[in-house]
């Protein structure tokens, strides 16, 4: 059976980069969602 405990440490970089990537993209989506709300509210008020 394959068992290489050091692989856990070797792959930690993927954990860091992966979580950072998720937070960045979700952050962009949050900003875009606030943006949509802001602009559509303004647009609706103008109507």
């Amino acid at each position, binding site marked *: *059976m*394959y*068992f*290489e*405990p050091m*692989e*856990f440490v*070797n*792959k*930690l970089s*993927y*954990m860091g*980069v*992966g*979580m950072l*990537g*998720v*937070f*960045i*993209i*979700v*952050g*962009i*989506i*949050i900003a*875009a*969602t*606030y943006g*949509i*709300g802001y602009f*559509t*509210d303004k*647009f*609706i008020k103008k109507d």
Partner: protein
Amino acid sequence: MNDLLIKLGELFSPIADFAKDGNWKMLIMWAIGGVLIYLAIKKQMEPTLLLPIGFGAILMNFPGVVKVVCLGETSHVLSTSFLFPEEYAGKLCPECGALLTTEYSGIAEPLHELYNAGIANELFPLLLFIGIGAMIDFGPLLNNPKLMIFGAAAQFGIFFTLCMASVFFPEIKDAASISIIGAADGPTSIVVANKLGSNYVGAITVAAYSYMALVPIIQPPVIKALTTKNERRIRMSYTQRSVSKTTKILFPIIISVIACIFAPGAGSLIGFLMFGNLIRECGVLDSLSETAQKVLANLITIFLGITIAFNMSAGQFLNGDTLLIMGLGLVAFIVDTAGGVLFAKLYNLVMKLLKKPLINPMIGAAGISAFPMSGRIVHKMALEEDNQNFLLMHSIGVNVSGQIASVIAGALILGFFS
């Protein structure tokens, strides 16, 4: 008369095969199928999927359903499913050195066709996402978009499991595919495992759906272990902000565009999810929306469940690796839940310093994609602690954001390793 007796003998030859060495594993697969059917009917755990998977698992484990055939001049059958043909397929015949291939008969023949038509090319999971998108109301999320950050935090289990799985699986494509069980999202698991060409698509899919069904059992002890009674009693005010129809229509379009730009691997999944949501929110396609939510989702679920069972022949499913995958899947769900709760506690620490209102850290656990079970569990747990603490809108908001974040995490995994 002799011919008739010979024919009669041939009719019962599969039963003779049954007595051969190692075939007891077939009975275990029947038992596994039976357990899945029991959980689906008696315990009502994801019955729409566990029932067809369980039934398919029984049907896939009969003599002659899968055969290994030698492609040499004297074409002959080398083994039947009782002898675990997957171990031979693609290798050379030990008798004549010619290439071996796998042939399917009985239930395996249509399931093989369905597998190629709907799972190998990821069509079924994507079509199912249209139905899921049509079912989701992003209203609670649009009401408070910052909740999405907890959906992101709850993907920690995926990357933690990636590290854990690479300890036991030498091929990184397998470790990465196993980690995506932590997405708590069947279609995403299937798409990622297929795209990465994992050898364990069947086990991964079964683990993903089984643990989604077990969310009510897995999450509460983890949440309780990481929170105090006082934390679980924190109330959160909910101000219903009117979300305009334009916002609801623009949201799926803009999210799809962002996903295609920043996480192209998520383009198909997010695109189909948001397409379903756009049908729901546009207001002029009510009949299509209803069809996507009910007829389409039900039809695909029927085919998806039984087709997944194609990967559940004893030779393919019943080995140490499958048990390991089930264990790693459980780790993924636990760490996902812990990641969400701990991130919510960290958020509260910052809010305390800023003297801003605190959030109930349990909502962090709803960031896993198992929708809507996870959101409901958090709401129920809050009510158990304080019967006036209504967290449903917050927890569902986090839960739907987990749906988006899990697809993004899947896309990143694909980006890393495909």
